[in-house]
């Protein structure tokens, strides 16, 4: 049976009608990983151990995880030599939820070490290659997840985002990447980076799959005190009930963006207009301030979170940290130290309040905000070394919404002339994932994302 490019929802149907078994599907993906991972380096660890799991809602389908999500019995490295041989004594809450919903862990995906970066090149396990062009980066830090989903080495993955780490690689690799509201998905058992920002979310080929996975991983967790209580809707039901929205276009988010990206966004806006959505021009605080707020808060929280890696209770000692982690720890320690705290950390937290109230004002007028996900398409490998804070620059259009804790999705809207995927993001108000998913889902139904995935998978046959 030809399984290539089938979504989770399609695979579930095949299992339910007994046309194929979950074991056969599992073996199919293991075979594909063995064939292509050597070139792409999107997996750090493969779990070949099939344990049948027939529970709803995944009925034994394989899901792959970014390697900062703790898994009992499968090593978790965060792509750092500090954790090279670390095996967590417990599962992250979202892993428990996936297992309880019939999922099987297929493997652990490469990422920027400690999720520090936007190119998957700071990994101590070597960079992941972009499946569209192996001389380019897939983006990051969840680049291993997006490369694996794009090249169909797994049907879906769970990544994490602090500011852009799901949306930006999804955009550069041509997949759907959903960053939920902060607190919507439990952080318990995920290697902490910026605790006030970190957010796990699904990386998939379709918006429906994203809704299905968000149904599974979302919800309050008593082990994460920042997870929030309203029970999430059944997204899968919500997204198929067609709605029309008033969508805001922030002109500040179109400055210094590649012309080809803007052209494709304009085309996508025409599609959305034909589906009945209305568009309004809006003004938002310039995202250049969000870069600074993010840089300070993230470095400060990193310096605190990575202080636990002392090599005493587990893992290797601090001499195993790579350059990027060391620089971030130092800057964070500097920003938090006496005499600089008010100037940097406190100032950043007050500007954060400004960014939040700025979004609050705009969401009184519009239901959703639409913008490019990234100012450029995928960079060549090696480019990041030229910029001291490459990640922040690549994530400029994702940082404001992350700082405000808002949900957003990046979806593919076409290819450049040189065949590189282009992403567009739809940002929603606090806890309003269903509107984002609804809008994105009908866009996919109308366009099938211009069949870009079919184009890519010709290079990756079974």
């Amino acid at each position, binding site marked *: 049976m030809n399984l290539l490019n089938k979504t989770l929802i399609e695979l579930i149907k095949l299992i339910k009608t007994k046309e194929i078994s979950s074991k056969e599907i599992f073996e199919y993906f293991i075979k594909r990983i063995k064939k292509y991972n050597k070139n792409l380096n999107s997996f750090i660890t493969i779990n070949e151990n099939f344990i049948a799991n027939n529970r709803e809602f995944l009925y034994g389908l394989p899901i792959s995880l970014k390697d900062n999500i703790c898994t009992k019995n499968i090593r978790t490295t965060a792509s750092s030599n500090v954790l090279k041989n670390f095996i967590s004594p*417990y599962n992250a809450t979202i892993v428990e939820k996936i297992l309880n919903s019939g999922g099987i862990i297929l493997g652990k995906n490469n990422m920027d070490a400690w999720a520090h970066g936007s190119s998957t090149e700071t990994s101590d396990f070597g960079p992941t290659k972009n499946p569209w062009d192996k001389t380019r980066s897939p983006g990051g830090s969840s680049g291993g997840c997006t490369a694996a989903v794009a090249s169909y080495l797994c049907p879906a993955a769970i990544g994490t985002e602090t500011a852009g780490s799901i949306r930006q690689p999804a955009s550069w690799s041509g997949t759907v990447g959903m960053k939920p509201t902060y607190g919507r998905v439990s952080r318990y058992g995920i290697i902490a980076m910026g605790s006030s920002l970190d957010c796990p979310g699904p990386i998939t080929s379709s918006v429906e799959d994203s809704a299905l996975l968000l149904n599974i991983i979302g919800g309050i967790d008593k082990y994460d005190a920042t997870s929030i209580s309203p029970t999430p809707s059944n997204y899968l039901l919500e997204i198929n009930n067609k709605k029309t929205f008033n969508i805001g276009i922030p002109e500040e988010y179109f400055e210094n963006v590649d012309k080809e990206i803007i052209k494709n966004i304009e085309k996508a806006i025409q599609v959305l207009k034909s589906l009945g959505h209305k568009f309004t021009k809006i003004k938002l605080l310039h995202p250049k301030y969000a870069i600074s707020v993010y840089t300070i808060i993230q470095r400060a929280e990193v310096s605190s979170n990575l202080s636990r890696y002392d090599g005493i209770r587990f893992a290797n000692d*601090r001499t195993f940290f790579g350059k990027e982690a060391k620089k971030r720890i130092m800057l964070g320690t500097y920003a938090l130290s006496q005499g600089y705290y008010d100037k940097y950390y406190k100032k950043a937290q007050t500007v954060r309040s400004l960014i939040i109230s700025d979004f609050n004002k705009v969401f009184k007028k519009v239901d959703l905000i639409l913008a490019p996900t990234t100012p450029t398409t995928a960079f060549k490998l090696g480019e990041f070394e030229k910029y001291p804070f490459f990640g922040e620059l690549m994530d400029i259009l994702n940082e404001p919404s992350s700082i405000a804790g808002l949900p957003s999705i990046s979806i593919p809207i076409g290819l450049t002339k040189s065949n590189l995927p282009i992403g567009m993001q739809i940002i929603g108000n606090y806890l309003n994932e269903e509107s984002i998913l609804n809008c994105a889902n009908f866009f996919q139904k109308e366009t099938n994302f211009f069949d870009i995935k079919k184009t890519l998978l010709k290079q990756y046959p079974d």
Partner: protein
Amino acid sequence: MDKNILKKVAKLSNLQITDNDLVEYKPQLEETVKYIDNLQELNTSKINPTHHISNVNNVYFTDGQKNLRKLSLKELEKSTKITANKYFITKKIL
């Protein structure tokens, strides 16, 4: 950024940084610090800081609930190289 401050920051962070490392890191850190200075353009004198956005406070773990975070000594010892008599061994501090 003063080189001595950077050395002190490295020491505070328990990182071993060589003079050669500093030659590389210093200009990069300086460029970052210069960039983030743009926040001073914004007037925030009447604004309170936001430390996290989820508006939850005072979250407690009820006594007597099943606590999955609790790990057995045996499980914990698996993760470390050096233990003795149920204790972790650290380097001498004083």
